[in-house]
Every structure is written in structure tokens, then in C-alpha cells.
């Protein structure tokens, strides 16, 4: 074999090395802290699971068909909550998105304000919003609608503003050069570009909201969640099996339908 030479060592700056080391140590410390201080009572968990396994799991797989009617009705209410909430959010999100998009309302200031509003809304988990609205309008499905509407506005507003920021601005410039006014540009240059994606995201959000609204019942905001709480506190696992079955069917059907519609739109 010919005379082979080893490659030079890679040069890495001291700064990069130290930075990598510090990050590594921080992550390590975080994990050590997490696992050392987490309070899991293994003994009890194992003992409970041995006792409870046959009481819970087999029953989940033999749903209580007698409850089918009730589950169906609650699922329907869940769909109503999600639908009304998503539609409200889709409408509310539009002005906020235009505010937050950098290429629309002019200045960076309005865009920053818009983005802050949206991320503040998003920081509230749906359930917290539901708690607030249950206190405001009483424990009923409408509280759920409001919670979904506000919660989705945060997310949809963000998505919409990103869509607006990605449109082809040359079309807009061409119209400006034509002498079109702002409203005309909006209707002829901007809206045709954003409508398909807006619709697609709104429909996708409806998918997400079906899942979200199925849990709001635990704080009294209507839908199937109410049944979940009753079934769990009564330890009625057959009924829980039925509920689970209902949720899986509805979510699968809606996911499937929404995926097809979205594929057609975009």
C-alpha cells in the first residue's frame, strides 16, 4: 500500500466547543432534575394496575350499545360546537391576520401589535378559555363555542397572516400601477390569491376543533366531554368504550372528508 497520510484534525473554535459543552451540560442537568424530582409512586401504580386491568381494559372493548343514542347526540353537539366555533374563528381571524401581516397594513408597528395579540390568544389553552366562558355564559354548549372560537382565532390568525405574507406582491404592484385604489387591489389582487388557502386552513382547523371540543365538557362547556366525566366518575367503562368508539368514528370520518375537500380546493 502506498504511503498514506492521516487527515488534519478539524479546527473548531474554542467558543463553539464551550458553547456545545454548556448546552450539553444544561440539557443533562434538566434531565437529571426532572427524573430525580418527579414524584411517581411506582408501587401503587403497579398494584393498582394489577387490580384494575381486568376491570377496565376488556370493558373498553365491549362498548355499551345501549348508550349509543346518547353518545350520538353528544357527538352531534360536539360537532355543532366545533363548527360554530371554527366558523366564528375563521371570520374573526381575517382582520387580525391582515393586521399582523407585514405586507398589508403598512408599518412594522401594526404588524408587531397584531402578532402579539395573536400569540397572546394562543397562549391560553382551550380549556382555560372554556373555564372563563362557563363562568360568563353558564355551563352550556355556547361557552364551548366561544372557547373554540377564541382559541382557534389565535392559531388561524397566525396561519392566515403567513399566507398573506407569502402572496405574489408583483400582482399588487401591477394594479397600483393601473391606478386601482386600495379596496380594488384588495378584491382583485389579494383576495383571489389567498382564498383557497384560507379555506383549506379553516377546514383543517375544523378537524382540530372537533378534537378540542370533545374535551370541553369536563369544565361544563357541553359536548361529549360531559359524558366522559360522568362515565369515568361512575367507573362505567363499557360506556367509556362506547364514547371512545363514537369519537373515533366521527373524527376519522371528518378527517377523511376534510382531507378530500382540501385536496380539491388547493
Amino acid at each position, binding site marked *: 500500500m502506498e504511503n498514506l497520510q492521516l487527515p488534519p484534525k478539524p479546527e473548531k473554535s474554542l467558543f463553539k466547543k464551550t458553547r456545545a459543552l454548556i448546552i450539553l451540560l444544561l440539557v443533562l442537568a*434538566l*434531565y437529571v*432534575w*426532572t*427524573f430525580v*424530582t*418527579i*414524584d*411517581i*409512586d411506582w408501587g*401503587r*401504580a403497579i398494584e*393498582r*394496575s394489577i387490580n*384494575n*386491568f381486568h376491570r*377496565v*381494559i376488556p370493558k*373498553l372493548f365491549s362498548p355499551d350499545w345501549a348508550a349509543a343514542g346518547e353518545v350520538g347526540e353528544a357527538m352531534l*353537539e360536539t360537532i*355543532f360546537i366545533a*363548527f*360554530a366555533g371554527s*366558523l366564528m374563528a375563521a371570520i374573526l381571524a381575517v382582520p387580525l391576520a391582515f393586521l399582523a401581516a407585514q405586507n398589508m397594513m403598512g408599518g412594522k408597528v401594526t404588524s408587531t401589535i397584531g402578532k402579539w395579540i395573536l400569540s*397572546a390568544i394562543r397562549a*391560553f*389553552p382551550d*380549556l*382555560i378559555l372554556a*373555564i*372563563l366562558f362557563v*363562568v*360568563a*355564559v*353558564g355551563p*352550556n*354548549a*355556547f361557552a364551548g*363555542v366561544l372557547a373554540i372560537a377564541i382559541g382557534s382565532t389565535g392559531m388561524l390568525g397566525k396561519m392566515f397572516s403567513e399566507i398573506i405574507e407569502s402572496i405574489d406582491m408583483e400582482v399588487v404592484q401591477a394594479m397600483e400601477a393601473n391606478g386601482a385604489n386600495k379596496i380594488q387591489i384588495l*378584491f382583485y389582487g389579494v*383576495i*383571489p390569491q389567498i*382564498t383557497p388557502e384560507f*379555506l383549506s386552513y379553516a377546514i383543517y382547523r375544523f378537524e382540530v376543533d372537533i*378534537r378540542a371540543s370533545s*374535551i370541553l365538557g*369536563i*369544565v361544563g362547556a*357541553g359536548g361529549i366531554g360531559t359524558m*366522559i366525566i360522568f*362515565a*369515568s366518575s361512575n367507573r362505567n367503562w363499557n360506556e*367509556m368504550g362506547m*364514547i*371512545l368508539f363514537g*369519537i*373515533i368514528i366521527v*373524527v*376519522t370520518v371528518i*378527517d377523511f372528508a376534510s382531507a378530500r375537500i382540501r385536496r380539491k380546493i388547493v
Partner: protein
Amino acid sequence: MTKNNSLTQKSIPLYPAKTKMQVTIIFLVILGFYLFSMIRTQEDMVGGISGALGNMYVVIEKFFPPNFTILSAIWDSMLETIKMAIIATTIAAIITVPLAVLSAQNITTFKPLYYLTRTFLNLLRTIPDLVLAVIFVGLFGVGVFPGILALTVFSLGILAKLISETIESVDMNPLEAMRASGGNVFQVIWYSLVPQVAPQFTSLVLYVFEINVRASVVLGMVGAGGIGLVLNQQIKFYNYPNAMTIIIVIFVTVLIIEYISNKLREALL
């Protein structure tokens, strides 16, 4: 132009009559369903919508000012929630790897295996976090452990789907080259797939961590540990100023975590 554009411009006779008809019908159906939903969901509401607006004032009065003296007492629970999210995200990130590879069409060429994993993951994703928590609490009793399990299973479904989509979008050329130079399956994956997927993987794990922090609020409500447990107690006792403090703490924590993970993500990509 697609016909959807006419949704917003239907008063202008620029589009064929049939398209206009279709759009009008779709629009009316959506509107009708919306009105019906609104009526159905407001059926049991006392006082109607005007009463609700008045109530808003009552809410603010009830919740404010928040009682910040309990801050030190809820601190531990908030940390517990974060710890639950960390552990669950970590476990999910590990289990997700084989599942994501198996449910990526370009890697798993053996179709039955691909469809099996896909279906399993789709099924997993239909189950709400709350239901998982209720079932695990029923199995293991009240505590952190069922909460972690629920979060793990819940985030596994989301993470595996997102990562399998990332895998499906990688550049397949290097994989072919590694195969052509005699690498076995594991070497091909490690040398040409992992470097392509790693940054996106980390970013998605961070995203799922954010989701888990939010979700663990829900879990506490049914006895699965963390800050939700405390929040639930305060609400049951109608102790709204205390509840407001907890809500503010959650709000701030979520914002901070989002900020940190955004910074990390920017550094990665």
C-alpha cells in the same frame, strides 16, 4: 382561476352561471348549518346572548384582582407539569423513531407493514388526550404516572405523523448511493436519512413539547397530576382570584416556553 375565488366576488358576473349556483348553494348550506349550530348550542343558555355580555363584566369582577399570595404554593405544581411534559416528550420522541420510519412510504417499501403502522397511528390520533388520561387514571390511580402515559401516547400520534411526513420529503439520492456502495439497511438510514431529518426532528419534538405543556393542564383536571389538579380544586371551590393567578402562571409559562423553543428552532434550521 379556480371557482373558489368567486366565493368573494359572486356579485360580479365574471363567472359561469353554474359555478355561481354551486357557490351559492355551498354558502347557504354553511350558513344554515351555522345558524342551526348556534341555536342548538344556545338552547340551554339562560338569559340569551345579551345576558352573556352583561356576564362578562361579572366574570372580570369575579376573577380580578388575582390573588398572587398563592404563587409560592402553586410553583411546585407548575414545575411538575413541566417535568411531566419533558418526560412524556422524551419517551414519545424515542418510540416515534421506528414508527415514523415504518409509516414513511419511501422507506418502508413493504406495503402491508406501511398500511398497518399508518392505520395504527391514525387511530391513535383520534383519541383525545382527556380520554387517554381518564383511562390511565382508571388503571393506575390518581397521580403523575397516568398523566405521563397519557401525554406520551397522545404526543406519539402527532409526532410520528409529522416526522414520517418529513422522512417522506427527504432527498432519496444519497440513500441510493449508500445502497450502491454496499451499506446495509441500518447504515443507509444512519448515514443518509438521519442527517437529513435531524434538524426537522428536533424542531418537531420542541413543538410537541409545547403541545404537551398545554395538554397537561387538561390532564390535571381528571387527576393526572400537575397544575391542572390545583386549578380544578380552586374552581370547584369557586375561588376565582386564586384560579386567575394559576391561569396567569400557565399563560406566562406557555409564552416563555414558546419563546425559548422558537429561539432554539432558529438556531437549528
